[in-house]
Structures are given as C-alpha cells and as structure tokens.
C-alpha cells in the first residue's frame, strides 16, 4: 500500500496545482456572489465536479427550478458515461474501494487513471484509490482556502489555470506514443472539433461522443464481418 502511494503521488502533482487554483477560484467566486463559505465547501465535498459546481452558482442565484437543474446536471456530466466504459475493467476488481473511485471519477482523475500503465509490482487497486483520494483532497482544500482566505493570497497566480491544459496535452501525447492508435486520435479530434463548430463550446461533448460511438461501432462491425469471411 505504501509502495503504491509513492507511485501514485507524483502523478497527482500537476492536479495539485490545478485543483488548488481552480478550487480556490471557485471558493472566491461563490463567496463574492454572497454565499456563505460553507456552501462552496459543502458543494466540493458532496458534488466534486468542477464544471458543474461553477454552473451551480448561476443556478442558485436564479429562481428555484428543479427540472432545469436535473437537465443541466445530466447534460454537463454526460461525458462521465464514457469514462465509465473505459474504466469498467480496470475498476472491476476494486471491491470496497470501487464506490469511491467511481464517485470521484473527474476529468483529471480519469485522464490519469485511463492513460497510465501501472508496473506489475505496484498494487493497481490502491494506485487508483490513492490518485482519486489525493485529487479529491486537493479540490476540497482549494475550495476551503478560496472560500475563507481567498482574497489574501500574496503572490500573483494569474495564468496558473494553464496547468490543466498542459496536463491533458502531455497525457494525450503519452497515450498516442504508447498506444499508437492514430486513427482513434483522428476520430476523437475530428468528432470533437467538428461538433465544437456546429454546437458551440457549451454543448459539443454529447454530439462528439455520439459521433465517436457510431464511427467506432461501424469499425467494430466491419472487423466482425471481415473476421467471418
């Protein structure tokens, strides 16, 4: 277990920077809108979904609308269904830890856990668990700092949000170099970019994922029919 923690921790350092900053920004934004510090902290503890929590500030400033809240939550978070397909097998042997790692499957945790190749001598289950738990701790800690002493941070952190772009970029490069799935890369990129231009930056992920499902589905059927001959 100790061994897997030593393996897991360095992988979460970029997320430490990103989540402390984003969590902090979230805490500052929420309290600047008049919410008590406990509200953003509670949200980070129970919801743990960055994009959704920023959206929730707007929802909670507007008149109460449970139906719109449900629909917006499902739409913003629909990408998690996809993460589930990838993590089904890796997470299938986790036992009691399974509930927590599924609950904490954010974009950043997914990107790390889905792209890393864990060496045989390291315990896989605990590695997934440590990465998920560390990221969760960073997010809650960032929110607490932002919601309580956020306005007194002494140094200039402008631009640190780029750390998550850099993380995603580097993990994509690693994924391409290790998997050599250039066609999957092309399909992922083109589906997303075309969908981005058609549906706009708020709504492009669901159509992009459907496009990928259809293209990969056809590829699967094509391989099957070739295999039968």
């Amino acid at each position: 277990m100790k061994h897997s923690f030593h393996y897991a921790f360095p992988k979460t350092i970029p997320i430490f920077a990103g989540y402390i900053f984003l969590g902090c920004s979230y805490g500052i934004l929420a309290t600047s809108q008049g919410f008590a510090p406990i509200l953003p902290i509670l949200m980070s503890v129970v919801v743990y979904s960055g994009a959704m929590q920023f959206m929730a500030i707007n929802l909670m400033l507007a008149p109460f609308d449970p139906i719109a809240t449900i629909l917006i939550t499902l739409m913003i978070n629909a990408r998690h269904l996809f993460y589930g397909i990838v993590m089904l097998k890796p997470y299938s042997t986790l036992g009691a830890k399974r509930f927590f790692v599924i609950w904490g499957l954010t974009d950043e945790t997914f990107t790390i856990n889905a792209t890393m190749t864990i060496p045989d001598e390291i315990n896989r289950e605990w590695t997934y668990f440590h990465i998920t738990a560390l990221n969760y701790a960073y997010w809650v800690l960032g929110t607490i700092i932002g919601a309580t002493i956020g306005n007194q941070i002494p140094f200039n952190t402008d631009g640190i949000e780029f750390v998550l772009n850099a993380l995603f970029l580097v993990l994509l490069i690693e994924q391409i170099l290790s998997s050599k799935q250039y066609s999957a890369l092309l399909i992922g990129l083109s589906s997303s970019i075309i969908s981005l231009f058609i549906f706009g930056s708020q709504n492009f992920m669901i159509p992009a994922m459907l496009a990928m499902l259809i293209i990969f589905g056809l590829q699967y059927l094509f391989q099957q029919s070739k295999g039968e001959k």
Partner: protein
Amino acid sequence: MTLQEQIITIIIITLGTMTTRFLTFMIFPPTRKTPIIIDFLSKLLPTAVVAMIVVYAYKEILTFTAPPQTIFPTVIATIATIIIHLWKRQLLLSISVGTLLYMFLYQIA
C-alpha cells in the same frame, strides 16, 4: 432561493452527477460478462476521449472566443510543452515549464 430550496438544489446536483458517474458501472456490473463491443470500445476510447478533453481545454482558442491577451501565451506555451515533452518525456518537467512560461507571458502582457 430559500435555504430549503438551496439544499434541494444541492441534493439534485449531487444525485445527478452520481447518476452519470455510476450508470455505466451499474449497467455492466463486474459479475456480468461485458459485451465484446464494450471491450473493443474501451481500448480505443482513452485516446479518442482524451483528445476530446484536450479540445475542451482549448475550446475558446479553437472557436476564436478566447480573451485576446491569452492567445499568444497559450500558443507559445502549448508549443513549448509539446516540444519539451517529446524531447525529455518527463511529465512534470513539461507541465511545469509550459505552465510557468504561460504565467510569465500572460502576466507581462
């Protein structure tokens, strides 16, 4: 919103988010054999989905809606991150240099 309405909203958001995270795992529990197409997808999706997440991270630049002062730092820091990573293959090095370069260019702009 009253306190009660706020609490209900938080509960809805919590349950909605959990639904999207758990649904796939509930449809295919570990006790059941997953269909072959899901195995097939799970091999190709990491590459395609991480590509989608990168597009998401760069959505403002790609749709030309990014604040003007972020465009130059983003382009330069992105190129630097890619080059350093292909050269050294050190995750933390590429990310740190890219981010510090971005912060520097953004703050002097």
